[in-house]
């Protein structure tokens, strides 16, 4: 008997299991992307940690150790124990936490309320308001900070020349209003309120309204329905959004920089010349805060299991009636507020490009058109000066258009690669939703999203230097792709979860190959959500600064070039480029919306 039935060797059994495992496309995807995501997420982090122990020539570590190379703990001990610890660590850390928390609250309150009104009430002018509300998210975040400065600064309070309000109406705002924590919170809050709207709006849109309707039938007062049903149902999802906005605010560099607030990210850059290793510790701290957010996020997602009513499948959304006056009154309030957050900055950008000198509002006092100019657009004498610090007008400035091309290249590449990888991750994870490995891959892909942009930028900066990729498009695309995969993977995962397995199974029975199943069945069904996973990385990438600012010189892409012009005080250039960017994003959004139905303001996976 023993001769007839031969027991296969263990090796053969394992090989067969491996073969069977890899016969499923989603297993191949999980293994390959698991390795890729582990490397791309961990490698920058490891190089960053290594940098905190390295000795840097010309830095404090060299001075304290007396060595020009090697490893040391001195960066850690000096940062935490020296007489500069308060200045270099504790104050920036405290400011970062306060800024992140408060701007997060502001964003959630403003964006969340707006999302609720748009999706769940009969407020008027929804289409216009929904489109206009996301403008601050399309614009680079520090442009609002500059608008703030140009509006409220005054000779009497902040020094220098008068801003617009002081110049025209003699209105002088107090110092706390003009600089520091308060304006930083407001500006970041406004910027991320659009983000909060996109995220929370998506949740409200997909929420099942059966319970609310049942309560309405039972004549429950509206405030009670809101307090007892609506908010508890979306609470875990809102908490998740809070954490995402918190993480994003924490990694913001330009807003605190322009409004003179010291945070971990601004301090990182200031310490770069003499305290390189210690600055890297600040980046590690930011990363650890990001990981803490991930843990909290996971906890919030677990608790969401208790609310199975958030199915994302209901088509019955009951609209709350705001009343005859209310629906107009609330709309008007938002029309006014969005005018200041979305329309006024654009008018201001446009106007600044016709001023003879930056911030020179002579025209308003004289109404003399000689106090306006078109030089910022058309000046064409490379040997002349004309107040442009040696630059040519925007329409003739090759540096600007080269940077525009660079931005498009990076944004398109990041969107395509991260969108595709995210789609595959979402697909594979949804197929193996109970597998621990799938969960691991999903988390690995998601971690970069929760890490502050500046910290990810720092990590890629150090890695890029080691790989010889510094100041190349390759490095920007690499960093951008890793950072934006979560946009696509989350969007893809939520949409894939909604597709019944039977649909694909029936295709498998008919022996239809995997790529055909994807292109002919899966993708067409969820094309709108999937395209959101491409669109959001594209738009975010177009105006991203914190992530890219350390990875290249200013002429490579537009956001770094805008920042350069802003620092130089050439606001006409930065404002003009901003206009070009906004128009580009709006055109892209409109085209995609027209062709596919996907749109930024309809949210991720919306």
């Amino acid at each position, binding site marked *: 008997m023993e001769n007839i039935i031969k027991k296969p060797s263990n090796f053969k059994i394992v090989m067969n299991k491996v073969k069977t495992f890899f016969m499923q496309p989603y297993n191949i995807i999980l293994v390959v992307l698991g390795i890729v995501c582990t490397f791309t997420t961990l490698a920058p982090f490891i190089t960053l940690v290594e940098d905190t122990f390295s000795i840097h020539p010309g830095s404090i570590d060299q001075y304290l150790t007396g060595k020009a190379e090697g490893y040391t703990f001195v960066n850690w001990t000096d940062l935490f124990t020296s007489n500069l610890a308060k200045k270099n660590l504790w104050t920036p850390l405290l400011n970062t936490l306060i800024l992140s928390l408060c701007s997060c609250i502001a964003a959630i309150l403003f964006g969340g309320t707006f999302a609720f009104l748009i999706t769940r009430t009969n407020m008027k002018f929804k289409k216009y308001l929904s489109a206009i509300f996301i403008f601050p998210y399309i614009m680079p975040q520090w442009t609002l900070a500059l608008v703030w400065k140009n509006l409220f600064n005054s000779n009497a309070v902040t020094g220098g020349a008068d801003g617009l309000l002081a110049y025209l109406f003699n209105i002088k705002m107090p110092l706390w209003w003009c600089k520091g924590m308060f304006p930083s919170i407001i500006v970041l809050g406004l910027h991320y309120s659009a983000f909060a709207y996109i995220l929370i709006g998506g949740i409200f849109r997909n929420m099942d309204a059966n319970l609310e309707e049942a309560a309405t039938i039972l004549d429950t007062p509206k405030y009670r329905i809101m307090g007892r049903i609506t908010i508890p149902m979306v609470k875990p999802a809102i908490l998740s959004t809070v954490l995402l906005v918190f993480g994003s605010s924490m990694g913001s560099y330009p807003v605190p920089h322009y409004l003179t607030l010291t945070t971990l990210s601004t301090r990182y850059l200031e310490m*770069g010349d003499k305290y390189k290793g210690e600055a890297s510790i600040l980046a590690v701290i930011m990363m650890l805060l990001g990981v803490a957010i991930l843990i909290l996020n996971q906890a919030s997602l677990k608790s969401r299991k208790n609310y199975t009513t958030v199915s994302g499948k209901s088509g019955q959304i009951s609209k709350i009636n705001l009343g005859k006056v209310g629906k107009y009154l609330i709309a008007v309030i938002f029309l006014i507020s969005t005018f200041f957050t979305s329309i006024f900055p654009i008018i201001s950008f446009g106007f600044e490009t016709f001023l003879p000198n*930056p911030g020179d509002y002579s025209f308003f006092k004289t109404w003399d058109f000689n106090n306006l100019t078109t030089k910022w657009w058309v000046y064409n004498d490379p040997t002349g000066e004309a107040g442009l610090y040696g630059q040519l007008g925007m329409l003739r400035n090759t540096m600007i258009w080269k940077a525009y091309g660079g931005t498009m290249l990076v944004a398109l590449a990041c969107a395509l690669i991260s969108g595709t990888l995210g789609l595959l991750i979402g697909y594979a994870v949804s197929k193996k939703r109970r597998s621990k490995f799938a969960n691991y891959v999903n988390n690995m892909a998601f971690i970069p999203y929760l890490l502050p942009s500046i910290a990810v930028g720092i990590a890629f900066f150090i890695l890029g230097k080691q790989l*010889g990729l510094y*100041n190349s498009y390759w490095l920007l695309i690499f960093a951008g792709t890793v950072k934006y995969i979560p946009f696509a993977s989350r969007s893809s995962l939520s949409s894939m979860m909604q597709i019944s397995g039977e649909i694909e199974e029936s295709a498998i029975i008919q022996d239809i190959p995997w790529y055909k199943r994807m292109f002919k069945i899966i993708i067409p069904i969820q094309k709108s959500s999937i395209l959101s996973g491409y669109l959001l990385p594209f738009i975010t990438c177009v105006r991203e600064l914190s992530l890219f600012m350390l990875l290249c010189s200013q002429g490579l892409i537009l956001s770094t070039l805008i920042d350069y012009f802003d620092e130089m005080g050439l606001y006409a250039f930065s404002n003009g480029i901003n206009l070009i960017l906004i128009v580009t994003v709006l055109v892209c959004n409109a085209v995609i919306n027209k062709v596919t139905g996907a749109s930024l303001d309809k949210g991720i996976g919306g």
Partner: protein
Amino acid sequence: MKKLTALLLACILVFATFALVGCKENQQLSPTEEIIAQAQTMSLEELARKAIEESNGKTFNGVGNSSRGKTALPYFIDYLKTIDPDYTLEFTWNQPKNNTIFEMLEADASTTAGTYSMTLIQDGNQIESKMVQTGILDRFIPKGWAEANNTTAEEYDGYLALQTLNKVFMYNCVNAEKTYTNIWDFVREGEHGLFMDIDSEIVGKNFLYMLTKPQYAAELKKSYDLLEGAQKTYVDNVVNEVAATADELGLDANGKYALAWIKLWVGSYSAQTDDGPICNSLVKSSAVDQFGLIVYSKLRSVEESADVSKNNIKIAAYQDNYQGLAGYGYCHYLFVTDNSPLPWTACAFIAYMTETQKGFDAWGKDIGGYSSNPVVAEENEKVHQHKTGGMAEDGSVLFDCLNDRGFEFWEPRLVIEDPEYCASVAFTVGNWIEGLEKYKG
């Protein structure tokens, strides 16, 4: 035991041999340094011929703190074409922001074949510790430049400076009653000068380091002696407060005056992102009673309008009753990268910029930048006439601030950067400065 001892000795011998070979290698010149050694004995024309041989039809990449390398390169190519009309050269010029030029050069140095052939860089302190001591940048002294300065490449031990730039105290003069006569006036109680933050522009920090150098501390003391009344009492309190620190930091007898000025300055200046916005602010009629310490040449870009005028500001040093230090000077240095892909071309370009007026013209066309080559400086003044740049055609003064008095006027009135001194106090005086409370307004 004998075998073991023999083995041990053999190992020691092998290690010692490797160590000696290593030492010998360290003393050897890199290929670029060998080329530089030859280039330093050549005239500009000889270098130009070498450059043509090396780079015809290729791409030359430069990196600098100033964007004008991009303007100078086409002139250089035109010059090479006068020798070989068929010569062609593509080029790129990168201008990284703030301090990132050091990261860029460091990253480029980590690759065997470098991208950048040369650099134009500022901040002597970091150049010394991060670039020169690490062997990333190599010093090249052109023969013609050395001769113009009555020296030789062997004798001269500094870096090659393209130019000295000055940052000068200037103030809004719409309120004619308010004047500044002394460097201590800029730290009077209630004054808040507009200045680029010392943490974002390191040459600003170098200025503060330099104030503690005995020669400049003595200047501060001289100006201090002119103070009277309440202002003197106000300063005295701070001088007494920092006297012990000056001793601890090993400064000379006048060091406490330097520390006092630094403390008052750091505690009062209003930090700005760049000199451009400061200049834009100061020239407005609404910037009453404001002053700044900014790059002089920024005034070139101010356009006259109803609210803005170059006559709204005055240069402190140009006022009759002003005494003593009135700004600071720092250099743009030129270096060849040690892994330069086109070292001969880099040397020729550097020689062209430092030995000819046309080569310097990209910078020389503006006020506030002075060629380190006295012959070029003189020729440049003849071409651009900066000393009368603010005069109308009829000889009347149109904009006094644009009449650049020249380097001979400025040199005794500027605190001029000394890389070696800056590097020596960066972690002593530097750490003390970093611990000072900054003005938050």
